[in-house]
């Protein structure tokens, strides 16, 4: 009986265009958009040419200072600031008259750099120009000190050598934020219409009364409906993972380089799939309660929206935390543990203790919410409007 009810519910769900749209099309669109956005974010600056407005007097000698910066294009103008305002350049550089001659003679010289800190391109160009001029400033200082017979160590008493503890590609952190966020959102958004339809929708259409009039046990009905919500969530989650994996592999360069699971590739993929299924089941229990609470589909959706918003919160907490800083709480709290475990997996870390805590916590909360849902479903107040 359970299987028959489940199959009917699945058929009914997938005949709904919203379910098809949200379980298949939405993950593809969402993941494609975000994958390309992050890819472009990583590759930002690479191969990009920035226009720098300079005065007419800016000659070959001045340009030689920037000889290593091939991505800077000079736009000569009578008024560089105006050129910048008009949008013909992203930053403007104004040198004091006879800039290089003044420096050679040891006279006072100045540089004015004008830009727009609200523009990423302008900020990037200003950083490039500042770096170049700082290097030039240091070389002038060094030349002057040497000519006076002073040791260079006077201006550089120590050197700083930074070492990175993680050997991972820094871009993997972006993926560790992107994948769980998209996965949790996709599962929540994908399963939500089905969940609302299966309880609140049935009450609204009065099919619930017809169902309750049959000799089928209420628990069987509840379990079949919960299985349907969990299945729709799982399909959405697996579609999301499939789409992101395919797009990273075939359509990106930087993100692809960031992912390297080594020998544990299949284990990590398997664990990610298990986590997706388990999270879908946990999510199904939560959405089931919000749907039972609602008298109409609309009311049910207004209860489920805040639940889906919860899935965004862990992004803010987990993003700034290194994998070595993750503690018991990060793996014991549902939703948060999806982010924590997937972060570890994406960094190629397999910690069985964390995996057990995560799976156990999801199962415990899933069962708890299911029991609450069952108690509600057994009461006439919640099943009949």
């Amino acid at each position, binding site marked *: *009986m359970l299987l*028959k*009810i489940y199959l*009917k519910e699945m*058929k*009914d769900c997938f*005949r*709904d265009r919203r379910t098809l749209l949200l379980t298949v099309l939405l993950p593809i669109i969402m993941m494609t958009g975000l994958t390309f956005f992050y890819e472009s974010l990583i590759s930002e600056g690479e191969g990009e040419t920035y226009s720098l407005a300079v005065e007419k007097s800016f000659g070959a000698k001045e340009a030689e200072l920037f000889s290593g910066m091939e991505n800077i294009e000079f736009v000569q103008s009578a008024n560089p600031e105006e050129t910048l305002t008009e949008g013909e350049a992203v930053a403007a550089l104004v040198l004091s008259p006879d800039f290089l001659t003044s420096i050679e003679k040891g006279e006072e010289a100045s540089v004015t750099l004008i830009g727009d800190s609200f523009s990423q391109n302008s900020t990037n160009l200003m950083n490039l120009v500042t770096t170049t001029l700082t290097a030039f400033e240091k070389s002038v200082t060094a030349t002057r000190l040497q000519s006076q017979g002073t040791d260079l160590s006077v201006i550089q008493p120590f050197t700083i050598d930074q070492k990175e503890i993680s050997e991972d590609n820094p871009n993997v952190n972006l993926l560790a934020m992107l994948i769980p966020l998209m996965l949790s959102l996709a599962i929540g958004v994908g399963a939500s219409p089905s969940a609302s339809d299966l309880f609140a929708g049935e009450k609204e*259409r*009065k*099919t619930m*009364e*017809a*169902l*309750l*009039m*049959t*000799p*089928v*046990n209420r628990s069987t009905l509840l379990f079949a409906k919960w299985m349907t919500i969990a299945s729709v969530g799982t399909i959405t989650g697996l579609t999301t993972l499939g789409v992101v994996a395919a797009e990273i592999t075939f359509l990106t360069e930087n993100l692809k380089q960031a992912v390297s699971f080594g020998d544990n590739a299949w284990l990590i993929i398997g664990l990610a799939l298990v986590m997706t299924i388990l999270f879908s089941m946990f999510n199904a229990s939560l959405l089931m309660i919000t749907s039972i609470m609602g008298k109409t589909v609309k009311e049910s959706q207004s209860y489920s929206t805040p639940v889906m918003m919860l899935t965004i919160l862990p992004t803010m907490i987990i993003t700034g935390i290194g994998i070595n800083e993750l503690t018991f709480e990060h793996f014991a709290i549902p939703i948060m543990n999806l982010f924590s475990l997937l972060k570890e997996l994406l960094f190629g870390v397999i910690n069985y203790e964390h995996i057990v805590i995560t799976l156990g916590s999801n199962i415990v909360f899933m069962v708890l919410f299911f029991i609450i849902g069952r108690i509600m479903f057994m009461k*006439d107040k919640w099943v*009949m409007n």
Partner: protein
Amino acid sequence: MIEINEVTKQFKDKKKFITALKHVSFSVNKGEVVGLLGENGAGKTTLLRSVATLLTPTDGEITVAGYNTQQNPNEIKKHIGVLFGGETGLYDRLTARENLAYFATLYGMGKHETKVRIEELAKMFGMRDYLDRKVGGFSKGMRQKVAIARTLIHNPDIILFDEPTTGLDITSSNVFRQLVHQLKREGKTILFSSHIMEEVSMLCDTVAMMHKGELVYHGKLEELYRSEGSRDLNYIFMSKLVRGNEDYAS
């Protein structure tokens, strides 16, 4: 077939209790068609839902086909078919056949039995042309026919209808009335609520009149006509209410 004994039903609304049924007692015999009359809020739907095991009485007891509604609800469900008015309770994305087959499954019917029964009902209600179309595109009359067929899919002995002709056009209402006559000929026991007096006088052997949760009359329709000296059920109903409630006298 149906024994309603001193049934009281209260609902909790915020901090106060609302009494929907007050010590209601009457019985419905096998093969009898009983009309439940009353204004909106009289307690007709609450009583039908209690008989259908969907609601538990606060006090008193109901026996259907020999089973107590609180002790053996699933046994009762095998013997009764229920259609609540206003809504047809069908799945729009399924075809009429799929809707009927699904409910047949829930009643534990086998594949062959279901197929035969669906064909039988389709013939009875003239639904063959649209049996394999999705219910979402049906007119109200078509939906009502499928809903009635769903109610009868497991061939129940007892049928409960709650204002079944509400919102139906004349043709669809007539289809329903013909069906009740047919079911009566087949010896089915029917309890239905209505506020259409003409319908009740046409179909029922017995009437039960309710007002503010109380049973104000229960008896054979012919006896009622005789005792009131009139065959105008509308007039009789109003005069019963006037006698039962001073508000109506003005």
